[in-house]
């Protein structure tokens, strides 16, 4: 590599100089006869690029070259603006995780004078920790990068980044382009603090929201104490805000937070955006995309390979299409080396994306003009317009061609040689004679690191070739291999069509050799003609919704369906109607009767079958991502499950197969005041937002007993530790919420507190409570607390001792949602009895049976039927335990819960009496759309088998081609319960 002393722009004018005279170089450098990409779309053929003082002076076909110019003729070569990586940790070392995993969680912040949460660190500035790393800089330059935007990759709010030119010379004064280049955020906690909050993704989202409110309050002078974090956050407000979301789902989630506060984040994606590209487009955000495309799994061992899941196999097959998908949809994006092991992997991955159809201009934009624009540096970076930094690449040809050589990477006018442009191409076939023996020499491989093969007649002679600084050294073994004698040749390369120099013979004598290159046959072109690049035949499996097993290639449509001759469980006055027709139309139940008109309807013969409204599970934790408990505080009313619905959970499909159509996804039971619920329909394949009920009733989860006391694990520091404390916690929060609400309604300025807003909704009877509860004392207590604050508890869930105070519950007006027969798992369920539902029902409490479990929820009909056994509830009433009654508890019984004209067409067709253990759901329909069909399910099994087999073949092919593979693994998908933290 060339030493960089030809330019003296490095010295700064206000610095004294003691090692010589102060000199200033005012020369120009002109690159002539080049193909110049001024921008990805503005291309000059045979042009000149004129630079001076690290900046572009001019470019074009008729640039006047000043006399004091160094002229570099690079005819045949191309010049591109160099790449920008805007998501880098270059030179900013990530802190190490704090050791000592103590038993107890830490609930309070470790810092003083900063925000209450340690993971919010807007006051952090990458520039303070920046240390230029020559080795990484060199690696990045080899990959084509000239500038990186680096930051401290730690914490939820990470503070400002630093924009750095990757030049070794001149020190940081020369390298740092911007010391406050954007603010970085993420949803991951800092490793520097063990503060517990947030323990979940929804907690992180809530924390961001509260933080913005607090910053606003602080800016308005509302706070009378010092908060350096909020001050920094406010100071960073006008910078570009870059957030690490890391998955398509989180992309959408963080964008919503931004929308709420008028911030349009630039989002670091997860590479899976193609799976929900319409939702991604709707964010209107710009993206930073990683290119860490997965390697094929090593599938040779068939037993190991058998655990691979279709979605993971597809990910390997489809992920390289992600950048193309964004480009095709007009979504602006930059590319990053982030999450690659080394920048060396960048080009091969980028080539893969191109192979999958990413447009080359888009790719170039994603590496130059787009990041420059996102960073607000379009005038100086990302192009070779006049006045821009002289950050450019000199290449042998089209930059994204596999065969193209990257010769030089100039950063701020500093030359970095990667491959010498003067290297002569010596590759070819030669013959030469030494001592009357004829040898064939064949040189191939990389231009600057070629390999040699030497033959004498038909015998291969072991050889070694080095080629450096225009000299070659070639050693090969003599034909008589028993002797281990070597010929040593050396030649200075002056021409490309022959080699000549001296040979040292095995006996030590020196002689000369001359090797003539054979005329080149147009072998490459011939190959092309014969066999087109097979790599171009990318076979991509179709993306489904969701993109894994049992997903829909096309979302199913609403239909008009007539069920003929069914046994219809109406849950209305009509009771159970035999031999009855039901028509569903426009997503609603249109008619119930006999001999209904079938015109325009798909007719389903339901003879011998039972038609019911769909099952409603009042208590589930499926369909959640990033944790179902925000356990970092004893109250977490600020979090909401609506933020983190995972519509791709296979549990949704399996629940459909069990006849479930609606459910309340609840926060867990880690704290007395939990998070807000999501009430959803199981619209398999739809987006998270489309699962939610329109005008959804507002709910929040509360919890009592052993879980909130943290009785069954080692935690002794969080209040409350007793049932006595639980009561006082409620008294405290509701008292404060009540005071807050008065202030809020008074019109005076107040600090907006999401948690208090939610609790005030309860006090104002705008939000319902579903409370996890077991023993009678605590159940009674909560009703009394509610009485004191003039509201009602809506539902006690689990409520295993409800039978002991059903009379008091009825008087309070609270409903019950219980397990059929769970008990003996905790001390507080010692008196749980399977007759619980029956007794509460008999007393007059609205009673439902729930699951809290993704296995049980797919046969809730059986769980309800247990009430027939335990206490003799009628079949019709027992059926309501899992349909109409939970609908009432959730305040959605105006839409669902029975078969009634005008209600949503959420129906299930059963093979048998749904109260029987022998019944199977054959069709599960929501709003007239068939989301589960037992016949389609059977076909899916075959399709899954076939596709997996095909993907395995493709992976084997990859391995046989010599490509690297990764070992078999299966993702962890925890099954959540109330107490899963």
């Amino acid at each position, binding site marked *: 590599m060339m030493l960089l002393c030809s330019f003296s722009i490095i010295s700064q004018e206000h610095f004294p100089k003691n090692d010589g005279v102060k000199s200033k170089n005012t020369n120009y450098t002109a690159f002539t006869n080049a193909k110049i990409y001024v921008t990805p779309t503005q291309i000059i053929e045979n042009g000149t690029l004129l630079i001076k003082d690290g900046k572009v002076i001019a470019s074009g076909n008729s640039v006047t070259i000043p006399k004091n110019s160094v002229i570099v003729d690079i005819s045949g070569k191309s010049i591109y603006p160099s790449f920008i990586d805007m998501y880098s940790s270059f030179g900013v070392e990530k802190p190490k995780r704090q050791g000592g*995993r103590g038993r107890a969680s830490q609930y309070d912040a470790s810092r003083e004078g900063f925000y209450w949460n340690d993971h919010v660190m807007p006051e952090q500035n990458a520039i303070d920790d920046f240390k230029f790393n020559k080795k990484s800089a060199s690696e990045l330059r080899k990959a084509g990068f000239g500038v990186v935007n680096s930051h401290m990759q730690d914490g939820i709010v990470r503070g400002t980044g630093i924009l750095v030119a990757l030049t070794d010379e001149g020190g940081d004064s020369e390298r740092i382009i911007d010391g406050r280049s954007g603010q970085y955020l993420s949803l991951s906690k800092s490793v520097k603090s063990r503060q517990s909050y947030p323990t979940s993704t929804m907690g992180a989202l809530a924390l961001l929201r509260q933080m913005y409110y607090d910053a606003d309050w602080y800016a308005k002078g509302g706070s009378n104490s010092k908060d350096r974090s909020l001050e920094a956050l406010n100071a960073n407000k006008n910078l570009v805000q870059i957030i690490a979301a890391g998955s398509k789902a989180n992309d959408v989630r963080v964008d919503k937070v931004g929308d709420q506060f008028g911030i349009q984040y630039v989002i670091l994606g997860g590479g899976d955006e193609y799976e929900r590209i319409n939702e991604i487009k709707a964010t209107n955000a710009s993206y930073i995309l990683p290119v860490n495309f997965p390697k094929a799994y090593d599938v040779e061992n068939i*037993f*190991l390979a*058998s*655990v691979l*899941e*279709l*979605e993971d196999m597809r990910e390997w097959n489809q992920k390289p299409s992600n950048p193309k998908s964004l480009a095709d949809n007009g979504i602006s994006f930059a590319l990053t080396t982030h999450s690659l092991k080394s920048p060396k992997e960048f080009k091969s991955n980028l080539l893969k994306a191109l192979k999958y159809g990413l447009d080359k201009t888009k790719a170039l934009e994603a590496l130059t003009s787009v990041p420059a624009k996102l960073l607000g540096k379009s005038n100086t970076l990302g192009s070779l317009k006049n006045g821009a930094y002289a950050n450019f690449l000199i290449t042998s040809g089209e930059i994204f061609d596999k065969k193209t050589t990257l010769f030089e990477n100039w950063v701020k006018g500093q030359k970095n040689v990667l491959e010498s442009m003067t290297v002569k191409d010596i590759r070819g076939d030669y013959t030469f004679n030494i001592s009357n023996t004829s040898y064939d020499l064949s040189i191939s491989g990389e231009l600057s690191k070629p390999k040699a093969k030497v033959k004498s007649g038909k015998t291969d002679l072991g050889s070694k070739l080095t080629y450096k600084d225009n000299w070659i050294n070639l050693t090969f073994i003599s034909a008589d291999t028993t002797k281990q004698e070597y010929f040593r040749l050396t030649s200075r390369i002056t021409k490309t069509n022959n080699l000549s120099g001296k040979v040292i013979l095995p006996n030590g004598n020196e002689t000369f050799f001359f090797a003539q290159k054979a005329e080149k046959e147009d072998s490459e072109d011939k190959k092309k003609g014969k066999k087109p690049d097979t790599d171009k035949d990318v076979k991509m499996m179709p993306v489904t919704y969701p993109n*894994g*097993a049992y997903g829909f290639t096309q979302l199913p449509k609403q239909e008009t369906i007539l069920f003929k001759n069914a046994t219809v469980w109406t849950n209305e006055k009509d009771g159970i109607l035999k031999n009855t027709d039901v028509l569903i139309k426009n997503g609603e139940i249109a008619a119930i009767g006999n001999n209904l008109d079938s015109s325009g309807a798909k007719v389903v013969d339901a003879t011998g079958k039972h038609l019911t409204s769909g099952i409603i599970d009042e208590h589930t934790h499926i369909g959640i991502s990033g944790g179902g408990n925000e356990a970092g505080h004893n109250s977490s009313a600020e979090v909401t499950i609506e933020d983190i619905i995972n519509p791709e959970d*296979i549990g949704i499909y*399996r629940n459909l*197969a069990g006849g479930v159509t609606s459910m309340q996804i609840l926060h867990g039971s880690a704290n007395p005041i939990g998070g807000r619920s999501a009430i959803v329909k199981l619209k398999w394949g739809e987006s998270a937002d489309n699962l939610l009920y329109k005008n959804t009733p507002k709910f929040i989860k509360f919890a009592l007993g*052993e879980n909130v006391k943290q009785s*069954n694990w080692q935690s002794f520091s969080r209040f409350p530790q007793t049932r006595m404390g639980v009561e006082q916690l409620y008294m405290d929060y509701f008292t404060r919420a009540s005071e807050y609400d008065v202030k809020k309604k008074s019109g005076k300025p107040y600090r907006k507190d999401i948690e208090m807003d939610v609790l005030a909704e309860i006090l104002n009877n705008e939000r319902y409570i579903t409370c996890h509860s077991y023993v009678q004392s605590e159940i009674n207590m909560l009703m009394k607390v509610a009485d004191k604050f003039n509201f009602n508890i809506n539902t006690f869930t689990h409520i295993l001792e409800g*039978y002991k105070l*059903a*009379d008091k519950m009825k008087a309070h007006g609270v409903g019950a949602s219980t397990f059929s*027969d*769970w*008990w*003996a*798992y*905790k*001390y507080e369920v*010692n*008196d749980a*009895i*399977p*007759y619980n539902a029956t*007794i509460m029902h*008999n*007393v007059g409490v609205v009673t439902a049976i729930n699951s809290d479990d993704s*296995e*049980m929820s797919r*046969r809730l009909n*059986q769980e309800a*039927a247990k009430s*027939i*056994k*335990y206490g003799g509830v009628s*079949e019709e009433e027992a059926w309501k335990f899992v349909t109409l009654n939970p609908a009432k508890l959730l305040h959605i019984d105006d839409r669902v819960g029975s078969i009634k004209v005008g209600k949503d067409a959420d129906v299930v067709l059963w*093979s*048998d009496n749904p109260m029987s*253990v*022998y*019944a*199977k759901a054959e069709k599960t329909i929501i709003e007239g759309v068939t989301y589960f069909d037992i016949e389609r*399910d059977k076909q899916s*099994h075959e399709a*899954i088998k076939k596709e*997996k087999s095909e993907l395995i073949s493709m992976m084997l092919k990859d391995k046989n081609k010599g490509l690297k593979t990764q*070992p*078999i*693994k*299966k*993702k*962890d*998908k925890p*099954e959540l319960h109330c107490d899963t933290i």
Partner: protein
Amino acid sequence: MNKINYISALLMLCFTITFAQQTPAPSQTEAFTITGATAHIGDGTVIENSVIIVENGKITACVNGLTSKIIFKGKVIDAKGKHVYPGFIAPNSTLGLAEIGAVRATRDFDEIGAMNPHIRSIIAYNAESKVVESVRPNGVLIGQITPRGGTISGTSSIVQFDAWNWEDATLKVDDGIHLNWPNSFTRGRWWLGEDPGLKANKNYAKEVNNISTFITESKAYLKGNKSTKNLPYDAMQGLFNGSQKLYVHVNDEKGITDAVDFAKTNGITNMVIVGGYQAFKVAHLLKTNNIPVLVRRVHSRPNSDDDDYDYPYKLAKLLTDQGVLVGLENSGQMERANARNLPFQAGQVVSQGMNKEDALKLITSNTAKILGINADYGTLETGKSATLFISEGDALDMRTNILSHAFIDGRVISLETHQTELWKRYSEKYKSQE
């Protein structure tokens, strides 16, 4: 409420407070006859209008009352319109080894150490467990009480569920040794920052070798003079002389294949697969080697997103169709409280197309055969123990699994439980408010 009722209610209240558990029934002294019921024999057949005579704890007749003339003996229980079943058997169960899952002090099923054949479940079995009594009203009358944990968890015993103490409860002591076959996959240690997903178990061969070594050493020890006692080796004897069965807890195809080969190599002939999630893939191997399977909990989730949603429901049927002898087991989360749902798990298999009487075998005669107690239990056949119950209807369906009588060895057992007592007590409470 009249006075007498009031007094009896009071008495009942006293009774529940004084005795938390049901009093075991005394031995049968007089013969009795159950008439008119549909008798589900447990071997796949049904006798309508049956006459079942029970004497000295044994079934002395079980015939169709319309076609064969038979003289009733002793007290006659009219069960017309009802159904009689052999007592259901819960294999691989921890009933009586723990009372409350979350309370460590009550947990006695998992000893430390890897090779624990000498650890015996029977002596820890709590015959007075409130959980045990709660399974009887659903027809579950017999269980194989099995330790957990380690590589060789220990030795199980088979008990009946109405006894004063473990000794009286025992039907077959130390019936089998339970081996947890090494997993082909391990989970990443997330607390060390590893990916928590599944990856290939690099120590699989080593772990299998540890078991082989233990077997080889046990054999060598047993051939010697045993001058220095080695309790674990000593406890292996029954496996080699055929008096005990080896229960291999394994789910994956490769593990099952390796385990079958392992047992053959080591001369272990009495082998049972427990779990067997992928046993269907090696059904032929199991059939040819006469190896039965205790299929893992029917009411469980598929292991993979890609698997059929109803695969766990139908596995028992798939294996049965291939000619493998199958029973159902219920280990897993909340397994003790859930043991009473065993009949409905058999019912679930019916929904997958298995004949009801064949499904019944999965929790009666098949299990009895697998456990080696079929000479006395598992069917309503003459000469067998009168361990049976009368249900109002189909006992595999929760709607109709309503017991009026249950017998263990001819003894009339109580169908009351801690739970029925609370049910009655609080029903009374609300009745009195009316």
